[in-house]
C-alpha cells in the first residue's frame, strides 16, 4: 500500500517507510544511539527532499528522546541545572542553524553542506570511537591496567561564570556547556540529527561529567533543541511531515526493542567498535558520492 506523504509530496510504500524506521530503530536500540545520522541520509537517498528529511527527522527525534529520557528521569539521572544551560545554548544554536539552513537552500548548496558536515563529523567520531574500542578490547586482555583521573583539567575550566552542578559533581564555567550546546544545536539543525554522537563524548571528555548523568541530560537537551527546530522549520519552510515522522516512529519503536535485546548480548567495547564501523561506512559512502563523477552534472529542482 502506497502513502502519499502530504508535506514531502512524494508517494512511498508504507512497508518501506516503516521498515526504514524499524531498521534504524534496531541499530539505535542495539547501540543506544539516536539514529538520526543514519535516518536523514537514508531519507534523502530514498528521494525525500533534503529540507523535509531534516525537519521531519527533528520531529521524530523529539519523540524518541522523550521516550528515552523518561527512564533516566525515573532513575534520577537527569542533571536539570546542567540541562537548563544546555537547552539555552541549544536553542540559540539551533535557531542559527535553521536560519543557515534556509540561506544555504536558497543558494542551492544545502545538500553539499549536509554531506560535508556528515563526512567531517562522522569521520572524526568514527575514527575516535574505533580507536577507543580497539584500545578497550586490548586492555581487557591484559588485566591490571591502571585507571586515570576522573577528568583532566585544562584552560577551558578556567573560564569565568563558574557554576556548581551538584548532580554531576562539577564546578565549571557555565559558558562551556552553553557554547558546546550551541555548536551542537547548529549541527543538529543542518544535519537533521539529535547530535548525541557529539554531545555525549563532549560532555564526558570536555565537561568531565560522570557517565550516568550524561545520557539522560543529553536527551533532555535534544528534546528541546529538536522541538525548536520542528517549530522553526514549520513556520519558515513548512517542511515538517508529521505523517512521515509518525510512520518512521512506529517502526523505530518496535525495532529498538529488538535491537536492545541483541545489544545486551554483546560487550560494550564490541558494540562501540561495531558502531564505529557503521559510522565510518556511512561516512565513506558520502565521500565516495562527493568525489566520483556524477552520471549527470545537471540537476533540476522545482521551486514553489
Amino acid at each position, binding site marked *: 500500500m502506497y502513502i502519499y506523504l502530504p508535506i514531502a509530496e512524494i508517494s512511498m510504500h508504507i512497508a518501506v517507510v516503516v521498515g526504514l524506521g524499524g531498521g534504524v530503530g534496531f541499530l539505535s536500540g542495539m547501540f543506544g544511539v539516536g539514529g538520526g545520522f543514519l535516518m536523514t541520509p537514508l531519507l534523502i537517498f530514498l528521494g525525500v527532499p533534503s529540507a523535509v528529511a531534516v525537519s521531519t527527522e527533528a520531529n521524530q527525534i523529539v*519523540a524518541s528522546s522523550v521516550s528515552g529520557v*523518561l527512564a533516566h528521569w525515573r532513575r534520577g539521572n537527569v542533571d536539570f541545572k546542567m540541562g537548563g544551560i544546555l537547552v539555552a545554548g541549544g536553542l540559540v544554536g539551533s535557531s542559527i542553524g535553521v536560519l543557515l539552513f534556509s540561506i544555504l537552500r536558497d543558494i542551492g548548496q544545502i545538500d553539499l553542506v549536509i554531506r560535508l558536515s556528515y563526512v567531517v563529523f562522522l569521520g572524526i567520531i568514527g575514527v575516535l570511537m574505533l580507536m577507543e574500542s580497539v584500545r578497550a578490547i586490548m586492555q581487557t586482555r591484559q588485566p591490571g591496567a591502571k585507571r586515570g583521573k576522573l577528568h583532566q583539567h585544562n584552560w577551558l575550566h578556567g573560564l569565568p561564570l563558574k557554576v556548581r552542578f551538584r548532580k554531576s559533581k562539577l564546578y565549571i564555567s557555565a559558558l562551556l556547556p552553553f557554547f558546546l550546546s550551541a555548536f551542537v544545536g547548529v549541527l543538529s539543525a543542518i544535519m537533521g540529527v539529535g547530535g548525541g554522537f557529539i554531545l555525549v563524548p563532549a560532555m564526558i571528555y570536555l565537561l568531565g561529567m560522570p557517565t550516568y548523568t550524561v545520557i539522560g541530560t543529553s536527551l533532555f537537551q535534544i528534546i528541546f533543541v529538536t522541538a525548536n527546530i520542528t517549530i522553526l522549520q514549520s513556520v519558515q519552510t*513548512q517542511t*515538517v511531515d*508529521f505523517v512521515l515522522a509518525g510512520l518512521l516512529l512506529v517502526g523505530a519503536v518496535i525495532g529498538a526493542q529488538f535491537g536492545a535485546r541483541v545489544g545486551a548480548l554483546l560487550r560494550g567495547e564490541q558494540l562501540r567498535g561495531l558502531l564505529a564501523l557503521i559510522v565510518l561506512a556511512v561516512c565513506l559512502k558520502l565521500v565516495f558520492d562527493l568525489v566520483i*563523477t556524477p552520471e549527470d552534472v545537471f540537476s533540476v529542482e522545482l*521551486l514553489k
Partner: protein
Amino acid sequence: MTSRVYNYLLAILLLVTGWTCPVHSSTLVADLDLDQVSITIDFNGESLLLFGAVSGGTASDIIVIFKGPDVPLALRKKERASGIWMNRQTIIWQNAPSFYHIFSNRTLDEVLSEEQQARLRIGAEHIGLRTSQVMLDKEKAKAWRSALTSNMTERGLWKLNERNVSIIRGALFRAPVYLPANIVPGEYEVRVLHVQNNQLVAEDTTYISVAKTGIGAMIYAFAHDYSIFYGFFAVCFAVFAGWLAAAAFRKQ
C-alpha cells in the same frame, strides 16, 4: 468505471450526430474519462484514458499535448572544485511546464515537419521559456536546454509518447495517459490536434484539474495556513507518541 464507458459512448454519439450535420471542414472532439484527478493519501499516480472522434473527413494523424501548470524550475550544474563535485551554476526557468507529455499515432517527425513543430510550438525544445539570465552563447544555451529536457524526462514529467494514439476506423481515437505520483496540482491543459499532410486541420482543447483532497489536503493546508500551530502540534504529537512508546515497552 461505468461513467468512463458512458463518456466514451457519448463521444461516439457526438461523432454520429456530427456526421449528419452538413459540415465540410473537419471538426474534432476529445475528452478524458475523468473530470478531476484527486491526490488522496494513497495516491500513487493515476491512469487516464483520452478519447475522441474526428468528423468531416478521415482522421489521419492525431497529436495530443498534455500540459501541466507552469512552475519555476532551478537547473543546477555541478563542477569539480578541489576534488569534490558541487553546484557551481544555476539557471532559473521562470515558467516551465511542470508536466509536458506529447502523444502521437506515428513519430512526431513523420506527422509534422521540424518547421511546423516549431511554428505550432510542439515539443520540449519549442516551448517558450523565460530564463533568469540571457544566454548569449548559443551552444551553451542549447546544452542547458537539453539538460532541462533530459532531467524532466528522467522524472517522468516530460515525455514524448510516440505511436501511443490508436486511431479506430479513421474516426475514433484514444490514448492511455499516465500521471505519475510526483505531479504538481493545478489545471492541466489537453490540446488535441488533427493533422493532415503536415497541416493542422482541426483542434480541440479540454482541461482537467489535479487537486489534493481528503486528509492529506487538510494536513497540507494546516501546515501552510497555520504553520505555527502546525509546528506546536507536531511537537505535542511527538511528545505524546514518545511517552506512549515508553509506557508500552516499560520494563516489567
